[in-house]
């Protein structure tokens, strides 16, 4: 899948787009996405000088964008999309640094009309972060 | 036996590890038992046995087996 296609589906562009490659996609259900981290990204400069580490919030945004890709790839909206959601749990297990390739695996289930997402991220096979999320969709058509 | 079961359960729940791997388990043997995992384990052990461990004991707590010795000092019996 090309970057333009990813941008079209989740309505997010550089410098906020945190997906580089889509390895697997089952529209509406699951996806595996890759983001490579390079020192040449703006957030490393401030986090931290001399000891660059990917901020937790950027990791989460990365994982959430993979989730959005999985979900919105089944639709065809032209308008920009707002999503309000509730995240019961996020756990950070290991730090991610420049040069790491983050692989995010997304599973979406519909439970009693509520969207639940599970996202787990790995670097070289080791689980670095996981989150569970409840989505409330709100979009303009 | 109850105490030993509870002790083992803390390890299994803290690290998501199989019971068969417990007896030989040492600090840093698995990614989950790093410095952060260590503090989580100590907090869970303290809660399970209603004890508060001294700093030296927390530092000495370097394996599943060693931990049994240390927790016994707090008047917790692991014998039948």
């Amino acid at each position, binding site marked *: 899948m090309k970057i333009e296609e990813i941008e079209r589906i989740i309505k997010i562009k550089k410098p906020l*787009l945190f997906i580089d490659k889509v390895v697997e996609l089952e529209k509406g259900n699951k996806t595996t996405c890759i983001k490579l981290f390079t020192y040449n990204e703006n957030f490393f400069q401030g986090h*931290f000088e001399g000891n660059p580490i990917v901020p937790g*919030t*950027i990791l989460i945004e990365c994982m959430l964008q993979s989730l959005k890709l999985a979900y919105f790839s089944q639709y065809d909206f032209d308008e920009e999309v707002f999503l309000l959601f509730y995240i019961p749990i996020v756990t*950070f297990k290991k730090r991610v640094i420049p040069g790491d390739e983050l692989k995010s695996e997304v599973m979406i289930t519909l439970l009693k009309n509520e969207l639940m997402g599970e996202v787990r991220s790995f670097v070289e096979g080791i689980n670095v972060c996981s989150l569970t999320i409840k989505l409330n969709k709100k979009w303009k058509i | 036996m109850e105490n030993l079961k509870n002790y083992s359960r803390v390890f299994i729940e803290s690290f998501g590890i199989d019971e068969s791997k417990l007896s030989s388990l040492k600090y840093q043997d698995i990614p989950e038992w790093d410095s952060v995992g260590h503090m989580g384990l100590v907090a869970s052990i303290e809660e399970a046995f209603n004890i508060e461990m001294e700093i030296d004991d927390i530092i000495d707590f370097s394996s599943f087996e060693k931990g049994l010795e240390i927790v016994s000092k707090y008047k917790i019996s692991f014998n039948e």
Partner: protein
Amino acid sequence: MNDNLANKGLSFDIAGIKKCQKNRYPLLYIDKVENVIPGKFARGIKCFSYNEWFFPAHFKKEPSVPGFIQVEALVQTFLMTFLTLSEYKGKKAMGLSWDKVKFKRTIVPGECLIIESHLVSFKRGIAKGYSVSFVDGKPACSAEFTVVIPSVLSKFNPK
């Protein structure tokens, strides 16, 4: 950094904030911190201006603050509840987990986020607490945090 009257707590400008925590531009998401009771409470303020790097991309027609930036502001205010203690100033802190992250409204350029952070427990280098935030008095984002100070944790490491 001013020392206000005891019952108003401490205040920190950007220079003061930078002495306590290691986040820097472009990842420093609080402008001012007030009413700080070190070891207990902090009130942070983050003003959002269109002139920030993320607005043009989020989104072109209707800019709003991305969720992860809101959470970053909440975490950074939370850090000020314990990194303002003299023995912890400037120490590196790492996020361990977030719980119950809720987003209640969109935030747009021109709005100011007021964040109130509470430190619930801080033992052996592990800080637990929560932040709630408001725009014009109405609830915005809230979350619970567990943050660790690795240099303190390492004192408890088995040898």
